[in-house]
């Protein structure tokens, strides 16, 4: 349902990026899997996609990319009643819940030295061929166009890929002690991603934007200093943004956490949009929009912790305040500031949809 009002979803999002008038703000949302399960028990008829239809999401995903050195070679090492230990296709040993979502417990990382990176992981990454199903992407793209959605390719950027292969401690200490190693990993991961993106475009899939995922911050600050980010990772983020612009696309960057310290670098790299702007990590579009609203579109920032109260007055004030602030720039799209958690009832989320529709009109 993306043709509500006078604009398609694609037209609406494009006008948002151009800071032109829209009938309403564009919308999208993310959910924990347990949230959808709860809602189904409370009367939701359908799946996550049906909730997005109710919200009238304007965005359609063409494909998801997370390049790995050992594609298709992940295997379960051991398991018990509730968890399983997996050596995944990135070489990471991790324990996952069998019936719950969430970040896994990291038990070990095989790529723990520069030698192993150069001799095993780097060649594997460079020699695994394409990591996307371009034909499936083509079909999804066609579908998004039929629905009038703003079509995007989602993918994991080099910092997140590095952490996935090498773990936080090796990655972050490596930034201090072996910066040229971390730089090499980042460049290689980005090269692989760009190769895959080129392959998708070569099939005639001229999507609208590249939506890149990489959590580079936590609730207090960025994981590394802005200077370290500028030296080691930022050049590759800039390459991705430049690739998108060279193909007449927009570049959306997803990161959780407090990124106030690197917003200027995002502008300098040519990012078009930041998402989801985590409220509990000191991100607030009421202060960000006046400062960055012309250079960066803001996507999100509605506080899921307030949603989790199920208190209608609290939630209405949150959505009213954030949407009013966002609309002032014409460069704002609705999304919660993370993923909607299972503490939120289905009744509450239907109320949230109503509020987003009411306060999101221009």
């Amino acid at each position, binding site marked *: 349902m993306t043709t509500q009002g006078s604009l398609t979803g694609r037209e609406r999002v494009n006008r948002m990026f151009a800071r032109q008038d829209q009938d309403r703000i564009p919308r999208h949302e993310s959910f*924990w899997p*347990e949230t959808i399960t709860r809602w189904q028990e409370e009367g939701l008829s359908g799946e996550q996609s049906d909730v997005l239809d109710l919200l009238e999401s304007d965005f359609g995903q063409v494909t998801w990319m997370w390049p790995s050195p050992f594609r298709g070679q992940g295997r379960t090492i051991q398991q018990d009643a509730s*968890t399983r230990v997996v050596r995944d296709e990135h070489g990471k040993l991790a*324990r*996952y*819940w069998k019936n*719950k979502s*969430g*970040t*896994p*417990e*990291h038990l070990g990382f095989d790529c723990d030295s520069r030698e192993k990176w150069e001799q095993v992981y780097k060649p594997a990454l460079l020699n695994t061929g394409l990591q996307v199903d371009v034909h499936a992407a083509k079909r999804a793209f066609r579908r998004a166009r039929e629905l009038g959605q703003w079509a995007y390719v989602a993918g994991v950027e080099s910092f997140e890929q590095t952490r996935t292969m090498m773990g*936080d*401690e090796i990655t*972050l*200490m490596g*930034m*201090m*002690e072996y910066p040229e190693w971390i730089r090499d990993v980042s460049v290689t991961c980005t090269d692989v991603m760009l190769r895959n993106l080129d392959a998708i475009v070569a099939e005639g899939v001229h999507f609208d934007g590249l939506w890149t995922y990489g959590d580079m911050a*936590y*609730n*207090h*600050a*960025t*994981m*590394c*200093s802005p200077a*370290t980010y500028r030296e080691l990772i930022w050049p590759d983020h800039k390459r991705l943004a430049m690739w998108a612009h060279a193909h007449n696309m927009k570049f959306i960057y997803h990161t959780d956490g407090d990124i106030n*310290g690197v917003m200027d670098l995002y502008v300098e790299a040519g990012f078009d949009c930041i998402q989801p702007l985590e409220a*509990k*990590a000191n991100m607030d579009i009421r202060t960000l929009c006046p400062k960055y609203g012309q250079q960066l579109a803001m996507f999100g920032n509605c506080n*899921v*912790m307030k949603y*989790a109260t199920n208190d209608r007055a609290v939630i209405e004030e949150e959505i009213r305040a954030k949407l009013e602030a966002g609309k002032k720039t014409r460069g704002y799209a609705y999304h919660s500031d*993370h993923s909607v*958690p*299972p*503490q939120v009832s289905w009744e509450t989320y239907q109320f949230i949809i109503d509020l987003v529709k009411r306060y999101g009109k221009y």
Partner: protein
Amino acid sequence: MAELQELTQVIIKGNRAEAKRLTQAAIDAQVPARQVLDALVAGMDEVGRRFQRNEVFVPEMLIASRAMKEAMALLEPMLVKAGIKPEYIAVIGAVQGDLHDIGKNLVAMMWRGANFQVVDLGTNVPAEKFIAAVKEHRAQVVGLSSLLTTTMPAMQATVKAIKDAGLGSLKVVVGGAPITQDFAKEIGADGFSPDAAGAVDLVRKLLAA
């Protein structure tokens, strides 16, 4: 002493080789173990202060902690010989249902850097395991971590179980991405820290009171 000041500085810089060399030199020169320990702890305290001011970040904290750990390994026998005990005994873990370990590990690291004895129970820790560890190690403080909104109820239940267990003057401190001061108060925790460095000062204040 200039050598001890230098030791503090190399801890701040995370220079593990120099930290070990200077610690060994101090041991060889029969500098009292307490003075060497104080120099090391002073380095980590300064790293914590700089971290809270966003002057250093997680990578700098990690390499400083590693330098501290390696220096402490050399100093440990001298501390035992001199009868110097850890400042406090702490138990830490991620609450049941939570498999995240990053934040919890950083707090454990900073506590060790402040000369706390830390019993790390890992992730997905049930309340009874926290209680048993507190009793076994005679801990004065227990730290609960939760990274997800989905495991906040488990944190609340764990705090209640620990409080109900009647463990004397034990302090319960909490932290994690979705945790706030208000939530900590609401669930009956004794303290909350928004970051790993703050967790050191929090425990010192709570236990000195």
